């Protein structure tokens, strides 16, 4: 009824679409860093959108199946193999008892998603199984633990398998370096020069990048802007601390904060960003809210209509 963890990987977490409705208590949403890949994973298996999957960051994971199932890989290419044979993301594969599934290290992108038919089974905490290590919430244990060697990851076994793969045109392009930004929040409090610098400079992902947020290195903007009165932080908010280096707040962000924010990364671009690694370069591109809305609807329609 399960995968047995032979090697736990650097950071492998159980995720669903997130813990919603508790941010007023300071509980973050969590959820898949690359939501687009996650949704494709469930779509490939005709699962519920919210069915729990493994988010495999970097790789070094090895699992042994104890029962048959059908799996889908989505997101990064982490050099996955099934019984030693290479397998590719954006496809489904049949798995038998005794099969060994291994993820080595990133070839393209950073985070891979492993979906099983029907989803992984775990008891939700506050309505979700999304693992947030910092808050000790979610995951297979309910206490926010990442995978450990020897863990059993339960699913409902099935012999049913439909071979499917994504059309090439639908596969997201992780080479894209432009990240779309909606300018809300305190955009007006930044000078014209700061805004111009923000949208015309290259920024490098620093070593301080995790599920909470990505800290960037590049041309500082809005240095020494005074703090603001703490307010709620939306997914993708780009806050500018006093050193002027942007921090993009992602799925495990804190819920409130007092740094001024120049804008918000769109949900679709946030998924792309989740596949970038420290050292990668990105640039920001202005996007109006109506464009962002359109992009999101198109992406979701593609995923749902394809089923």
């Amino acid at each position: 009824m399960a995968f047995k963890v032979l090697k736990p990987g650097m950071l492998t977490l159980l995720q669903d679409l997130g813990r919603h409705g508790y941010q007023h208590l300071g509980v973050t949403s969590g959820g898949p860093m690359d939501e687009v890949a996650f949704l494709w994973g469930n779509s490939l298996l005709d699962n519920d959108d919210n069915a729990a999957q493994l988010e495999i960051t970097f790789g070094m994971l090895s699992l042994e199946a104890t029962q048959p199932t059908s799996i889908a890989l989505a997101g990064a290419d982490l050099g996955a193999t099934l019984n030693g044979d290479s397998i590719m993301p954006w496809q489904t594969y049949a798995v038998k008892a005794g099969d060994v599934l291994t993820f080595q290290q990133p070839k393209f992108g950073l985070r891979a998603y492993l979906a099983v038919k029907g989803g992984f089974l775990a008891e939700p905490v506050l309505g979700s199984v999304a693992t947030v290590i910092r808050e000790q919430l979610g995951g297979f244990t309910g206490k926010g633990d990442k995978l450990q060697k020897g863990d059993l990851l339960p699913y409902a076994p099935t012999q049913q398998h439909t071979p499917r793969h994504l059309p090439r045109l639908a596969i997201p392009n992780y080479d894209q370096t432009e990240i779309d930004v909606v300018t809300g929040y305190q955009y007006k409090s930044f000078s014209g020069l700061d805004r111009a610098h923000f949208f015309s400079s290259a920024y490098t992902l620093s070593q301080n990048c995790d599920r909470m947020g990505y800290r960037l290195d590049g041309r500082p903007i809005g240095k020494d802007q005074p703090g603001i009165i703490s307010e709620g932080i939306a997914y993708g908010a780009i806050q500018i601390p006093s050193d002027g280096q942007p921090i993009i707040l992602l799925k495990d962000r804190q819920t409130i904060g007092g740094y001024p924010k120049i804008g918000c990364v769109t949900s679709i671009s946030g998924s792309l960003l989740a596949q970038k690694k420290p050292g990668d370069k990105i640039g920001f591109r202005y996007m109006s809210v109506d464009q962002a809305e359109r992009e999101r609807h198109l992406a979701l329609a593609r995923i749902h209509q394809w089923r």
Partner: protein
Amino acid sequence: MMHNETSTSATPTHIEISLVSDQACLLQFSDSISDEVADQISLVTTALQNHQGIIDLIPSYTTLLVVFDAGCFDRFAIQKTLQSVLAKVDWSSAGNRISHEVVIPVYYGPEVGPDLEDVAKHCQLDIEEVIRLHSTTTYRAYAIGFTPGFAFLGNTPEALHVPRKTTPRLKVPLGSVAIAERQTAVYPSVTPGGWQILGRTPTKLVDWTSDSLALIKAGDSVRFKPMSKEEFLAQGGNLDGF
């Protein structure tokens, strides 16, 4: 326990609604913090709770962040919905709001309040006076955040205003009661923290298996009640952590 607020009410002059992303809106009530503004935010938060298509509400000092389901609302629909909810709010009820009062027992002792002495020195008070001032003020929970269940409580009496510590502690023990500038708070989990620690409560601030989840919610009134070391230990408090 219920408690009658005495602050006066008023209709907000202008609430600015702005889109911050394709799935969130920020309502800005004012540029400055006041009980009046906090009352208005509480009212609007309550009015929007359980509204179809609204995923999360994050009230803070002067703002309310509304996270919405982009499948239910587009940019026009969400603003229209918010405007119609705001138009229906009975602002006159803000002043006689019945707020929930939370009383938190605290052991103010040297083993669990390592900054008591420094705070007393900084404020030119003796330790007893620091404890008296801290525990005779009724605070308001202006915002919850930083970590789950961490309530920013204000305002401390002016005589107790102290800066944050220059070097934050890497681990603040569970239940620590601390002050910084005009605010006070209880640490609901072990985290780094730079506030000045006065004591510790044996009371659990968050319990995800209970119905109430978090003891303090935004808008609540909070008081601290001094307890002896014996009472603290009897209620399950511990003296470890420093």
